[in-house]
């Protein structure tokens, strides 16, 4: 490591530099933290991203609009449906068409199921990072039920490519409603167990309360959205600010706390799972009949610039399309939530210990392919 460029000046005595990553069991993905430590305390931290840059935005310039969805669900792969929904909504906004009610209901139900699945995986990995190794298995066991629902209707568990500009690719399986209702009932019984195992535990509370304080001004300045920002009091839920799909029809609460430490970022996500369950319950019994796909001649955005934002499980995803009338976009840019959430980690972890760094980066819930695209 001595011959690589060292970005940090060692000012005081007893400071040394440690690299956490790119291959490390607890940064979830390929991300390198160059940490300057003094004893056990973190003085300064520089994240290096870009290890998984695949050129999604450039590749999209040679794909047609319907083909974009096969790349977008590889950005933040844990909220694959929501990424696809973002691109579909942007293209539909550009063409000026509106999808049928059936499509809106199904899109919202799939998005909320994805949100629950993503939070389940986050909970499993967070517990495992802190040392409670059983949480990994409990969270994933319950997530399997959601993945079975996805597999039955869309054909894939993780990268579904189901929500496409104009509607959905196929119709959902006839068992969809029954399975989702069963899952909601099952999960309502299991979620209190998660609280008993981890949330109320005194060791866990000692590890996360008072750690990684993020003030409201910092959250707004760095653009930290999603549950991480809402833990500091930033009201940034796009589902409330600019509702899309079937969100105007449902009633749910936006969960914010104004404490801003790791424990409250954790609590935001736990409570969001309850809210997602109630959204699904409000929609699942009333899915209207209707066409799945719009009858369009060609899916092409007219000339101009279009922007659409949605709320993924990690924050605000924005899709910006510049089009000159061709079948492929001239330029497409994704404002990804993880890119903005990552760079606040230097500010909030200065002064804490190495063990807290793991807890803080777990509570920010970073998915690295989203940072690098």
């Amino acid at each position, binding site marked *: 490591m001595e011959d690589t460029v060292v970005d940090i000046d060692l000012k005081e005595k007893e400071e040394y530099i440690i690299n956490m990553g790119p291959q490390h069991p607890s940064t979830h993905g390929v991300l390198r933290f160059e940490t300057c430590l003094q004893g056990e305390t973190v003085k300064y931290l520089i994240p290096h991203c870009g290890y998984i840059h695949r050129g999604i935005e450039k590749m999209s310039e040679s794909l047609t609009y319907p*083909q974009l969805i*096969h790349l977008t669900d590889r950005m933040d792969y844990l909220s694959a449906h929501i990424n696809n929904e973002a691109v579909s909504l942007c293209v539909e906004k550009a063409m000026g068409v509106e999808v049928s009610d059936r499509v809106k209901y199904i899109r919202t139900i799939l998005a909320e199921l994805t949100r629950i699945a993503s939070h389940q995986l986050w909970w499993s990995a967070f517990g495992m990072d802190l040392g409670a190794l059983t949480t990994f298995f409990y969270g994933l066991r319950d997530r399997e039920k959601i993945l079975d629902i996805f597999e*039955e209707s869309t054909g894939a568990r993780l990268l579904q490519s189901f929500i496409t500009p104009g509607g959905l690719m196929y119709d959902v399986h006839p068992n969809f409603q029954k399975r989702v209702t069963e899952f909601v009932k099952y999960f309502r019984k299991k979620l209190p167990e998660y609280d*008993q*195992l981890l949330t109320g*535990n005194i060791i866990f509370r000692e590890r996360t309360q008072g750690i990684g304080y993020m003030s409201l001004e910092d959250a707004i300045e760095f653009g930290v959205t999603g549950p991480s920002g809402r833990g500091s009091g930033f009201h940034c839920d796009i589902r409330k600010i600019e509702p899309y799909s079937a969100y105007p029809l449902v009633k749910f609460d936006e969960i914010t706390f104004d404490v801003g430490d790791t424990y409250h970022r954790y609590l935001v996500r736990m409570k969001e799972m309850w809210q997602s369950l109630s959204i699904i319950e409000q929609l699942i019994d009333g899915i209207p009949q209707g066409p799945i796909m719009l009858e369009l001649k060609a899916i092409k955005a007219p000339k101009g610039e279009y922007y659409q934002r949605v709320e993924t499980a990690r924050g605000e995803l924005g899709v910006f399309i510049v089009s000159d009338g061709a079948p492929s976009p001239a330029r497409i840019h994704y404002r990804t939530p993880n890119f903005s959430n990552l760079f606040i980690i230097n500010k909030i972890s200065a002064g804490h210990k190495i063990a807290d760094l793991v807890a803080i980066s777990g509570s920010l819930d970073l998915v690295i392919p989203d940072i690098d695209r």
Partner: protein
Amino acid sequence: MALLKTIKEVGNYFLEIYDGLASLARGMKVTGKYFIKPSEIVTQQYPENRATLQMFDAFKGELILKHTEDNEHFCDACNSCARACPNGSIEIVSKREVGEDGKSKRLLDKYIYRLDTCTFCGLCVPACDQNAIAFSQEFEHAVFDRTKLIKQLNKPGSHVVQKQKTEAK
């Protein structure tokens, strides 16, 4: 007053300890319950349960060209699926033949499908007008030699179904 404060602090100390131990006991109850009576074993004994393992019908395993029992397929080499594929995993090699009525027809020679670059996005299947391709539920694709993953989907000796049987869907 100072005495009252000390008594309160000592009381708080013991209350904290009790609180902490109670939360630990609650956590242990959850794992203990699963130890005594694991509600279900969520892992499957994979190679031994191949006989009963069934994927869902919509599962996107591998692309196949549908064949009837008489070894006939439905593909008319229109190239829609190759155009719909985002990364060129389908290549259609067609040939021209002169039919009975003297007009030259376009027929499928080789339908080349690259399993090693396919991303299973499923954009090819709805693009086909003849409903000729579909996804099978086969998931065991591991090979030792990468060239085996470039497959020719039309079976040897098969030809396209005659026009009166198919309707454009």
